[in-house]
């Protein structure tokens, strides 16, 4: 424990009537204790991996918090320069490992735009379904995980249990539970297996029921509300200035969703969906918004399944993919927020440069501002409610 020496008594000139203040000042100096520096992480159950927070504590109150990142840096931006385009999808779906399929989509989109080819409609629909499924699986884990960080053990298991149905669907369609690597430039590897659509409908019903359960068990719980309401308030403008995006920003009342407001991609323009926002911007709002978005995603999947066209799943592409010279920036609404790739091609089989813009990095950049003055337990709930993936921060 590091305690500093008490500072020397300040010289105070007595003024008439100031005697009481002097006594108070004296007491304050005597009771003043040194700050304690606490290392939350890199190995701490609440940091989802290897985030390190150097927290300066006065008692249990946080004086300052400095996130230290980079423990999981894997150098993906550099690695992409040594891979061909089809190989890179393997890399990018390990950035945010909870929603791997959603990470592939913008990259493949970038390559397709440079090559001016377009995936056939059925492939686009299946891509959208799988993207929404990975959104559901990511958010569903969050719904349980957040309750775990607030101290309730049971919802975490419900989250894991029902997420498994969704992962089974993703595995059924793509062959990979976590890292599907299912996108091809110009389409998809395979069509959907037989019976997959009807099974997906059943699972979506299960997820919708599970969301009701979370609403009762977690969001409706008085203790949960006491722990999260008006804790960690992010003003919408400040959040946007820090580059926050996705549900975190929508929970601060900013009505901005790239699926609706960005450059049209996949089949989102044809879908009828609501963008949920919450005016409060606190931890509870972030939980609530994700809960609603999970439901909305379920409805979107059901809609997509109803409208699913038939046809080929692969456009005509050359056997060796060479992307013409050019630059392109694609951004999409990933489960964690805005995810973008800036791809520079010099006409080779692999990109010349790739810049990856991942959501979590910007989402957690507000932490030093947000964590100042809160209590230690609230640090954990705020971290949980910001919902970041370490791979998405460090890349």
């Amino acid at each position, binding site marked *: *424990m590091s305690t500093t020496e008490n500072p020397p008594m300040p010289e105070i000139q007595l003024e008439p009537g100031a005697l009481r203040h002097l006594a108070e000042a004296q007491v304050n100096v005597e009771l003043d204790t040194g700050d*304690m520096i*606490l290392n939350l992480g890199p190995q*701490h*159950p*609440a940091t989802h991996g290897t985030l390190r927070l150097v927290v300066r504590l006065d008692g*249990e109150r946080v004086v300052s918090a400095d996130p230290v990142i980079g423990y999981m840096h894997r150098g993906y931006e550099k690695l992409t320069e040594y891979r061909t385009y089809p190989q890179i999808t393997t890399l990018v779906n390990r950035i945010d490992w909870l929603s791997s399929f959603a990470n592939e989509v913008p990259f493949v989109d970038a390559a397709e735009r440079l090559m001016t080819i377009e995936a056939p409609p059925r492939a686009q629909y299946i891509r959208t379904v799988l993207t929404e499924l990975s959104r559901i699986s990511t958010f569903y884990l969050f719904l349980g995980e957040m*309750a*775990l*960080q*607030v*101290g*309730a*053990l*049971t919802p975490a*298991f*419900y989250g894991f*249990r029902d997420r498994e149905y969704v992962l089974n669907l993703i595995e059924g369609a793509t062959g990979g539970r976590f890292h599907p690597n299912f996108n091809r430039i110009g389409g998809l590897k395979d069509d959907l297996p037989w019976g997959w659509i009807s099974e997906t409908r059943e699972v979506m019903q299960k997820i919708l029921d599970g969301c009701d359960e979370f609403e009762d*068990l*977690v969001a409706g*719980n008085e*203790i*949960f509300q*006491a*722990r999260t309401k008006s804790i960690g308030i992010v003003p919408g403008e400040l959040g946007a200035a820090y580059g926050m995006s996705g549900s975190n920003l929508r929970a601060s009342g900013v009505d901005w969703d790239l699926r609706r407001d960005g450059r049209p991609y996949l089949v989102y323009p044809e879908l009828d969906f609501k963008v949920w926002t919450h005016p409060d911007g606190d931890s509870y709002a972030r939980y609530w918004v994700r809960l609603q978005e999970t439901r909305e995603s379920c409805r979107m999947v059901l809609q997509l399944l109803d409208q699913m066209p038939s046809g080929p799943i692969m456009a005509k592409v050359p056997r060796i993919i060479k992307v013409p010279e050019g630059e392109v920036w694609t951004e999409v609404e990933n489960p964690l927020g805005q995810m973008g790739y800036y791809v520079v091609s010099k006409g080779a089989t692999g990109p010349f440069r790739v810049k990856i813009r991942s959501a979590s990095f910007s989402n957690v950049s507000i932490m030093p501002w947000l964590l100042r003055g809160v*209590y*230690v*337990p*609230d*640090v*954990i709930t705020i971290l949980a409610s910001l919902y970041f993936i370490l791979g998405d921060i460090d890349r």
Partner: protein
Amino acid sequence: MSHLLALDVGWGTTLAIKTIIILALVPAGALILGYTFLLKMMSHMQSRLGPMDPGGFHGWFQLIGDGIKFIQKEDVMPEGSDRRVFAMAPIVILMSTFLIFVVIPAGPRIVVKDIDVGVFYALAVSSLSVIGVLMAGWASSNKFALLGALRAAAQLIAYELPLLLAVVGVVVQAGTMSLQGIVFAQQNGSIFGWSGIGNPFFFTQIIGFGLFLVAAQAELTQTPFDMPVAESELVAGYMVEYTGFRFLFFYIGEVGTAFAFAALAATLFLGGWAIPGVHGAMADLLGPIVLFVKLMFVAFLFFWVRFTYPRLREDQLQALAWKVLIPLGLANILLTGILKVAM
């Protein structure tokens, strides 16, 4: 007890038997509660099976196996720790659990020592464990452990007062502080003139029962009030540096205290060993079983809450204690006093 065994034993033998029973009770109780609630009930509430293989039948051997595992582990003492205090802390915690069982009656004659101020004694020794927690937290030379221990100390006042106030209502109604006397008062009492099932204070002291459950939950550092342990914040709080056998002591202490408090609540509010229509030697035989059933019911309530609720913050517990629990407890005492005088 000596009548039951039809043996005339000396005080030394009696003392030895009593000591052995008390010493066996805490680990046995911890095993039963740990298996029934921590392993099986929790698993089923979380839609999983829990351990199924060890021992053959629903994994009953799991906890014993865990115990054997803990004994095999290396006894690590962190560098810079206060070694003597570090070693003593788990013993202090366990001791407070053992001492509670001294006064809990399991039959008209089955009680180690029926003290005149039994309730007072039980609540006093149960608070000893906080000293052990503070010792553990301080001696570990770990910041997380220290934070956990200081939280436990801060929590002490918040729940100890409601706990006492909850029990005062029972004491007023029974007119005695002896636990055996409280059980007799419940067995022979009547609810507004109807004495069909005696008067378990559960009915007349329902507010007290609720207060007792809430405060006991804090005393046991179980979830809504498990801030000293707070797995997601302080990793395991004051226990973070403990390994092997010493950790096992904490574990037994934690679940054993739940056993003791369930027994205490069953005795104070549910009539203890008494059931309607059973008296004398028969009550001595059935008493332990009856007490056990009632105790398991109370323990079920403890653990049910534990597995369902999230955790409060330290300052929110203080607010709850001072603004809700203590006024409620005082109102309950006032009401009990008025009814006691009026009836």
